[in-house]
């Protein structure tokens, strides 16, 4: 009896078959991307079967090879797209798609393109920090001893920042910078970017490193919007450069069974509507210049992104991870 009921329930939960459908592999948070996929389906009639994978996305794609059902891949971090390209898992995108974004947001060979970006900024306590400008180098200054909070160094967001530093400063200077930041930490690197904000509000630290879009997301939360009121956001820069941004990217696997439909999803993701969604709902920075960032960020001034190419940063990611290990940043 139990077996029959469970089998019946299993059948009920099977996803409904759609006439036209494509398969998306993604490691983006479901809550951040699903509304866009639903919108795409309602507009195009193409159903998107999304597989949300936290780890092993590339291995899965590689092992599946020609049998893979993946039509399109969207990843939080451009490094995964670049690795896919290196492993020859990607296919060339159409010029129509590539021409939609600026040169900094796409692969030179035209095999991946960016969808949205996120600046790695500094949260400060409005009450306790008077500085209105800061550089990444300043974070290693002894005046911040015991006052900085950050998530783990091995997190992709921080590895992107460290790779950016290696590209600009070289490994030796980045290493001493990392050691300087480590010496200034109020607690061991842990939690997430929201925890960084939370710990500044409680007074455990005065400043912290986090992504800009979390400030937007926190401002939408009943409890967390009170924290945002007590925080200031500074856009730190590399000397002679700008603020580090990491980028979510997309590509069409070379084994994709429905390349045309996959391209229409990407085309939708680069439409004004989707880009505005990235900006207004996810609080990310759109890759299209015509779309303005969320209003909430207007108080914090204008962000100037660092010009280091995403490709260079992707290629330095492994080195960044090893440097985090070498300096014992997370230990």
């Amino acid at each position, binding site marked *: 009896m139990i077996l029959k009921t469970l089998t019946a*329930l299993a059948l009920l939960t099977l996803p409904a078959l759609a006439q036209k459908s494509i398969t998306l592999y993604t490691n983006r948070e479901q809550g951040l991307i699903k509304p866009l996929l639903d919108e795409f389906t309602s507009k195009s009639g193409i159903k998107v079967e*999304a*597989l949300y994978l936290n*780890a092993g996305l590339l291995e899965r794609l590689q*092992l599946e090879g020609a049998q893979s*059902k993946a039509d399109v891949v969207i990843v939080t971090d451009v490094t995964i797209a670049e690795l896919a390209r290196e492993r020859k898992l990607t296919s060339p995108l159409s010029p129509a798609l590539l021409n939609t974004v600026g040169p900094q947001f796409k692969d030179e060979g035209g095999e991946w393109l960016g969808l949205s970006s996120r600046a790695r900024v500094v949260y400060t306590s409005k009450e306790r920090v008077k500085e209105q400008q800061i550089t990444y180098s300043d974070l290693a200054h002894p005046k911040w001893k015991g006052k900085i909070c950050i998530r783990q160094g091995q997190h992709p967001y921080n590895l992107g920042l460290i790779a950016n530093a290696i590209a600009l400063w070289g490994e030796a200077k980045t290493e001493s910078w990392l050691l300087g930041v480590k010496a200034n930490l109020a607690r061991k690197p842990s939690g997430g970017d929201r925890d960084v904000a939370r710990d500044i509000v409680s007074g455990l630290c005065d400043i912290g490193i986090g992504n800009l879009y979390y400030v937007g997301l926190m401002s939408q939360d009943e409890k967390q919007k009170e924290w945002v009121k007590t925080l200031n956001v500074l856009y730190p820069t590399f000397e002679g450069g700008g603020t580090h941004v990491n980028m979510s990217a997309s590509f069409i696997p070379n084994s994709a069974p429905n390349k045309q439909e996959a391209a229409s999803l990407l085309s939708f993701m680069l439409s004004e509507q989707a880009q505005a969604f990235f900006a207004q709902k996810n609080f990310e920075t759109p890759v299209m210049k015509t779309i303005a960032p969320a209003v909430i960020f207007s108080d914090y001034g204008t962000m100037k992104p660092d010009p280091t190419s995403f490709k260079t940063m992707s290629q330095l990611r492994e080195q960044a991870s*090893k440097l985090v290990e070498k300096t014992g940043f997370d230990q």
Partner: protein
Amino acid sequence: MKTTGLIALWLIALWLLSPYFALLGFASKASFTLPSFFATTLFTTISLIICVLFFAGGIGLLAAFTLHYVDLRHKKLLTVLLILPLTLPPYLLAFLWGDMLDGQGVVQQFYREMMGYKLRRDYWFFEPKSFAGAVFVFSLALYPYVFLTLQAYLKCLNPHYVASALSLGANRWQVLRRIPLKIATPALLAGLLMVGFETLNDIGVAKYSGVVTLPMMIMTKWQEQNNLGDASLLSLLIFGVIACGLWVQTRLLRHVKSAKAHNHHSTLFKPLGWRLWGVQSLLIMPAIFGFLMPLIYMLSLLKMSSFELKPMITSVIIAFFTAITALLFASALLMLQRRNAKVSMRLFALSYALPGSILGVGLLGVYIYIGGSWLLNSIIGLILGLSIRFLFQIYEQVQAASGAVSPHILLAAKSLGAKPLTRLWKIELPLLRPAFYSGVILVMIEAMKELPLTLMLRPIGYETLSLSIYDAVERGNLESVALNCLAMCLIGCISVWLLIRKNG
């Protein structure tokens, strides 16, 4: 047993080892260099495991012995309460306690207001995002393993031993130290083993607490340094060390015989008045910290939560079929063990000793190799993976219980002409039913909470409770799935109730 049957059993055993072959394949490409701070990470991991074993073991041991040897009221209710923390995933417990106890949590806000402090850094307070915080969470989440296995063993202990010892003049403490503690050593070790594996393989709590452990180092090798070869090799090395440890443990305990269940309670202590209430209150503490307080906190978040039925149904289905599949695997191993007493079949059930994600990537390789992508894109692939992961839980239960089945009964049946399957079906299965039953429920609870493997092997369109909770925890927005958390607790409560009702 016919040759075909034997071949089928060995094929099942081989299937259980298949992820290791895939990992060996990946490891053959390893450019093995020990990562910096490897020794520190190893030390941190071992320290964490030792601390958790000490506290979880201590709590589980004290709770089981108190419940068994002290004359208390509402023993059944106390038993249920003490098992309940098992229903909460450790990463969720870490997040909830973190939310309650950190600088911006209710406790510290009240403390600051009361003491007149302005900033969190102006005073000392227990920090949940720390090594101690991780030990606190793991101890609360994992002590039920020790409690459950010890409790089951104590019921097997013949009460006449205790009565005889008392009549020969030993005092109650001497009796306690000399008889049950010694006899329950295998059960204590079995419970501690599960605690150790759970601690070793966790990534969620360690990440949240900022404690760098070996599995995190392995994941970094794979995910951030693009080196699956080294990650696989490191995992296999850990596996090898654990397998050796288990072999030593089996050798050391080879003379310890399992006892037959008597289901009797012996009473050594009869506290009265305030002492009785004192003992009862102390006994309930692990359940308060490990389940009731986090539950109340979750209830306080309810107003901001939404709920979907589908993930709950999916979770139950996956958990149920995972448990049934694991049960079949365990039965196959048991039959093989009967035929090959010299080879420990435990080795085939040891995937529990691998980090979930690493087992996942091994299974990815196997699925693609044997069946194309259909296994990957079906719920069957996930259920098979989960059943391999949690086989150890059920196998240990069944193996321990099978030791209590007298070989004379089986020999008698054999001499009367009963075939192996008949013997299994008519004699062993009925005798082992309690062990199977508790094993199935334990695996169901575990499969409901499981995360890393589910994250890697879930088919398209499937959402489970643990996945939705993890998604929200990652976004730092647990409020949005508080009802899902409660649903998970509720299913866990029902499972625990079933466990107690059947096993007494």
